[in-house]
């Protein structure tokens, strides 16, 4: 799979749309560095996940909770960092308007959503035998 396609799939899992060209360009060499530091088993498991078409967010979360698929977690974290350096993404990362109710609601929603995704991800992991 090309690093362009890979960046697109991962970026979409987190941000809901295709990766900007500058992110794709920067992700390529970084992805290679991350893979160079991974074991063959980790790399194979990662590639199976990527081509599976499964819900990557759910899989990654369940894998993180169970200490599996470390390369997937590191690549998503790398994309999150690359994305933060772009001016157009600042509203994703930075809260510019104070609202305690919104903060509480966002926290509660994040917990509930994660609980559901975690269960779904664990089922996917069991079914897919990714790692």
């Amino acid at each position, binding site marked *: 799979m090309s690093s362009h396609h890979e960046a697109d799939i991962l970026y979409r899992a987190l941000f809901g749309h295709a990766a900007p060209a500058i992110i794709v360009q920067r992700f390529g060499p970084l992805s290679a560095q991350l893979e160079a530091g991974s074991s063959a088993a980790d790399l194979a498991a990662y590639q199976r996940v990527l081509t599976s078409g499964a819900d990557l967010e*759910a899989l*990654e*979360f369940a894998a993180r*909770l169970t200490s599996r698929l470390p390369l997937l977690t*590191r690549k998503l*974290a790398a994309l999150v960092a690359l994305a933060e350096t772009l*001016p157009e993404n600042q509203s994703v990362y930075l809260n*510019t308007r104070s609202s305690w109710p*919104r903060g509480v609601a966002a926290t509660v929603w994040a917990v509930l959503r994660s609980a559901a*995704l975690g269960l779904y991800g664990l089922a996917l992991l069991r079914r897919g035998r990714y790692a």
Partner: protein
Amino acid sequence: MHDVLIIGAGAAAAAAAFELAQRGIRPLMLDAGAVDDNPTPRVEGNLYDFRRHHDSFDLHIGADYRGLAHLVSAEPAIAKLQAPHMAYVTRDAEVLGPLSQQNFAAIQSFALGGLGNAWGAGLYRWIAADLHDFPLTLTELEPYFDKLTAEIGINGAEDDLAEFFGNPAGLQPPLTLSHNAQQVWQAYQHHRTSLRRRGIALGRPRTGVLSRAHDGRPACDYSNLEFWQAQPYVFTPAQMLRKLNAAGQLNYYGDMLALRWQEHADHVTVTARRLDGGREAQFSARRVLLAAGAINSARLALQSAGDTLTRLPLLENPILQIPLILPASLGRRLDTHSFGLVQLNLVWQAAAWQTLLQGSLIELTAPLRAEFFGRFPLAGRSNLALLREMLPAMLMLQLYFPAQVQPPARLGLLADSRLRIEGASFAPDLSRLQPLLGALRSLGLWTHPALIQQPVTGHAIHYAGTLPMRSHPHAYQCRPDGRLHGSERVFVADSASFSSLSAKNMSLGMMANAMRIAAGAVQ
């Protein structure tokens, strides 16, 4: 023949040179001397104004992805040292000072100014309790603390921590607190009596950060940029060395790696390797001050003796990192105009460890938000949402333990010229933290033991005690005046000479002691 030769160019070396300059002595300084040569233009103004209008890839990550080294290598990393502008601080360290480590993660610098280029500039006076195991008294150090306070411009306040941080005379006013730190400070005023009864005190830190313009340097501009590039209002040893060099009070030789010394009846010969060509050169001086840092001063002592058998102690402050959430600040906008490092200090008389612990409450406004991605036990998009809503409501407590809570690491020279460091695992029983966590709750700060991080020993970068000061020293120990056992002309001027290491940041004590040693050496 030089009068005084200083090996190293970190905080201790700078302080020794400063004291010698005041006595009209121009020392020769040998140093590898890497300098900041990052081609990326400096960012002016505020970090977040910059981020809103410019691509910050070069500032935060860099073309070689240095800012994401923790993801690539999965090794523990100091966030501030990962900044692309800080690359020179640790450049070639593994080549110039090769190490073999177990249960220890020493970080070395061979840059002009040493690791002080990337420090938080915590500069705390010692009190008598900090010198409990030292064969010297506070009175011997006080004049040097006074001189450093006046020269550097240290901010702080006369508050509940003055009894731990010493004489507040000559301090600049404290920095303006961030919103979160202000909330905590107000809560502390409300619960102060009860907290003091529980052995917990809170107060303003002592940092070498200017709250008012001083000595041609500007006051802090609350830009959050001190995390990402050198800012003139944050004191560094490199500033002091450059000032001495410009005034002709220092004879600085960069590109020189000191290898060993040999002592003669009336002088010492130091052999160094030129880094530009690899040839060896020799320098002679009447006195030599070792100030290469606790690890490399010990390396020099072992190399000079050709000793691959002896194992020396190495002290370090174990630390815990405790993320803290202020629920009342949830959903608050990010405090983009703030000082991005230590806001408040905490001192805890911890009965469970029968010792004083010191903590730094650090703002999280400066690092990339992405640095915390995955730290919450939540799914990816939910993590992103929480970074936005919760990080502006968080502080980090970095809790320092005195070195005595664990056996010292052991350091020895291997036949292949690497230094072998074997540390002891630090595994504190976190249930002993309950009194502290309870006190933090009364300040409106919440956490959970599962969120507490325990970096590998070496992370505090407070290395000391490899050639300790004793009243009656043995081999590889030094006398109270700094002279190494068996030597008349070689003095240990850096933290290698520490007899013990309290939980307090050691930098100012190390600098004052270096001045004392330098003054004694030339008397």
